[in-house]
């Protein structure tokens, strides 16, 4: 992690909704992702984690702050700049069912990131698509099939293949495994780790499950109501959470261990964590 980080988000503010009824979804969030690094972004629904992803990728207008990729400010990138940027940054969505157009063959979807790229002829495209499929453990003939013919886990592999077919340097994944079954979830988590090891991309990993994030991430950022409440080394945050919210979050997750889980639940039932906004930011870096 030398020099400037691959992704630098500084004091990001995003308001959602119409002007009058707008709500602040993201409130002065800063984070960085370096090449080859996985940063986990954790929070409950409404914490703003998906909005951050969408803002980074230009799918949501930014109210304030700055987003830089490779040192280049892309906060208010135009359409053209965005398109150029698509080479470097890719996103994988939570829902493998709706992130692939069900009416198009896998090959059609996979080739899209290469379509507007100069110097990639159709033959080369086919090769790249086949390579990408192979990388995620799917046979090359999958290009002829429709998304409906694949299971959820396979579709998420396809989505990964599409994201990686253009060899981006930054991958943002928004809850990529939370819609998957347990047995498949582990496969995808491993796949993500393997691919990063192989391709060396930076990875912003968004999830609500602290255990998954801990497993996959180098660093972890905990969000609550649009603000960063805690960030630091993933293992460290998981084991020794400082912020009460992080603690509550950890306590709320039932652990597959009857003893611990029951104790936690009993403790939870006695004293539920406060639901109100968190005063101030106690982020520890």
């Amino acid at each position: 992690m030398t020099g400037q980080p691959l992704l630098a988000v500084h004091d990001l503010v995003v308001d959602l909704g119409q002007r009058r009824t707008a709500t602040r979804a993201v409130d002065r969030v800063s984070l960085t992702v370096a090449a080859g690094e996985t940063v986990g972004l954790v929070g409950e629904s409404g914490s703003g984690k998906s909005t951050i992803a969408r803002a980074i990728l230009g799918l949501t207008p930014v109210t304030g702050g700055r987003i830089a990729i490779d040192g280049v400010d892309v906060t208010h990138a135009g359409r053209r700049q965005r398109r150029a940027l698509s080479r470097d940054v890719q996103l994988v969505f939570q829902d493998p069912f709706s992130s692939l157009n069900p009416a198009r063959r896998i090959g059609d979807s996979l080739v899209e990131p290469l379509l507007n790229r100069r110097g990639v002829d159709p033959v080369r495209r086919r090769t790249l698509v086949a390579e990408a499929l192979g990388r995620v453990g799917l046979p090359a003939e999958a290009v002829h099939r429709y998304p409906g013919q694949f299971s959820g886990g396979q579709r998420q592999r396809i989505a990964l293949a599409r994201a990686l077919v253009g060899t981006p340097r930054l991958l943002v994944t928004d809850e990529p495994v939370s819609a998957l079954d347990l047995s498949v979830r582990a496969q995808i988590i491993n796949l993500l780790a393997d691919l990063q090891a192989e391709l060396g991309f930076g990875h912003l990993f968004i999830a609500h499950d602290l255990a998954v994030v801990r497993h996959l991430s180098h660093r972890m950022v905990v969000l609550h109501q649009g603000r960063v409440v805690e960030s630091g080394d993933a293992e460290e945050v998981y084991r020794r959470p400082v912020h009460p919210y992080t603690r509550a979050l950890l306590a709320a997750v039932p652990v597959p261990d009857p003893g611990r889980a029951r104790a936690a639940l009993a403790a939870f039932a006695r004293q539920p964590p406060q639901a109100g906004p968190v005063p101030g930011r106690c982020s520890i870096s």
Partner: protein
Amino acid sequence: MSGPGPASARLLRRPLVLLALLWLALVLVCALHPELVTGRDPVDQDLPAALSGPSAAHPLGTDRLGQDLLSRLAYGAAGTLWGVLVAVLTATVVGVGLGLLAGYLGGLVDALVGRLADLLFALPAIVILLVVVAVFPGDVTIAMLTFGLLLSSGLIRVVRAATRSTREELFIAAARLAGLSTPQILRRHVLPRLRGLVIVQASLVAAVALVMQASLAFLGFGPPPPEPSWGGMIDEARAVIVRHPWALFPPGLAVALTVLSFVLLGDAARDGATAAWSATKLARRRRRSPGAGVARTTAPAPAHPTGSAPAHPLGSAPAHPALSTPVHPVAPPPAGTPRHADTLLSVRQLSVQLPARPGRGARTGTTVVSDVDLDVGPGEIVGLVGESGCGKTVTALSILGLPPGDGRITGSCHFAGVDLVGATDRQWRTVRGRRIGYVAQDPMVSLDPTLRVGVQLAEAVRRHTGLGRRPARARVLALLRDVGLPAPETAARRYPHQLSGGMAQRVAIAFALAGDPDLLIADEPTTALDVTRQAEILALLARTSRDRRMAVLLVTHDLGVVAALCDRAVVMYAGQVVESCPVTDLFARPRHPYTRGLLAADPHRASRSGPLPTISGTVPAPGDWPTGCRFAPRCPLAGEPCRRAPVPLDRLGPGHAVRCVRPDEDRVAA
């Protein structure tokens, strides 16, 4: 789940569609080469034969000038089709163009186009058309152009709505992120999705335009008299209606049949074009709630100025399965171990078979649950664990006698002395809600969206307790307080959509508790919630179970939830119970390789370093189950005996049963 190719082939096999195609082909032939259909000139007068019925010389009879009706019909087809074509093209081009623009761009353009559509809709079409034909007498093209424009308001709205919803789809975002330009996205993703919709709308426009064209000709604004037109023929028939009513029928039927064909074909084409979409939708719904998956999915009905809903293909008209009581065969004698005396619910050999539904994804008579044994004692919390598609929800619903689809239940299901398999409606009335309550996965859709929470709860309370209006209300408030809603009065006045997910699930639980049941079946009650909300609901369930001495059958895929809440666990895989044991055993001494694999793959339990242990492969779909051990293809320990024959559920000790050939070979999976 088939692609569009086979779907279109299937459509052609439908006899009605084929007939519609044939009829339209005939009309088209008439329009292009009427001389192929009839040897007579449409204006040839056979005066002596005027106003005759069908005869050898005049197969459809004659009009009052002795002109051959068949010939006039045939020669009138060209003008008719042309008018329809003009209207359809205009409506489609304008409707799709503006609809796309409005839907995709949004903002001011959307507002303007929306207003335009409103305007077009508010214009009295026929008055406008009367004016148009007065300005351009006898000009069908301009009249139909105008009509197409007026009709485009429906298309604009439908296309706009569909575009908007498509634009929100993730794959559009994905395409944009892939660097596609807007035209590329429209061409590759939006337009194909609109195809089915536009086809249906276009077919409706065609139908309406045809009728309107006939109406105009009937009013005397069609092509001038010597020239045949269908509406004009109805008008001519009207002139002789007292003497010769027969003349009304050939042109009337020609119009009706052609309209019918348009609608049928549009419908069929829609089914073909959207086969891929429906398949996914089906799968999606199935995943979320297996019960809904097999039910028909219905396309949203587009609003239309002429007020016609899209027609569905003829011949498929199932009653809603949920409301027809399935016919159960006589239950086989209960197998397996005898029930405990203190068992509240005892399920034995429960199997569920879905009926064949050609063209609906499910295969012929697919068995989705087979030979499930399950016991729940009074006050006991039992977890029914498994991955999606393993049959856990089907099992839970079948206990309530509500298998998804027209599922056929076999086996037995004793609850408080009654075998629920084969229970009568009267028996169910005393069980559902009063002895067994039910909570579904997604709280936001498990309450009636149109009624206030209090009203819904009051209905359940009054139904189960027979209380009067006022006491029922008090009880509703008590229930709401019981499930931890701090301000029950306020909550009771709310509509479901005004509640947060956690609150809604509390209300749903209150709904299930209204009859003070002995057993609560909760189907993934926390899956749709955040972890903190989940913890609250779990705590609520635990407390309620304890306080009311109420048993809970908790369907879940989350081992953590099982650990936190359950006394015993039943693990299902591919429609079968593979392991059943006290919770402590499940986590401390799992015996089935699948259970072990699941536990190992859980990142909570795994060590931080190194890859997670995984189970290779994927869960087989119902119908693709292997004959032997269903887990064998994914099992690291599987050997020849595993694949040979079905494996029975073996009792290993008190309260522990496992479906494995060698459960004692304790190998380290991780």
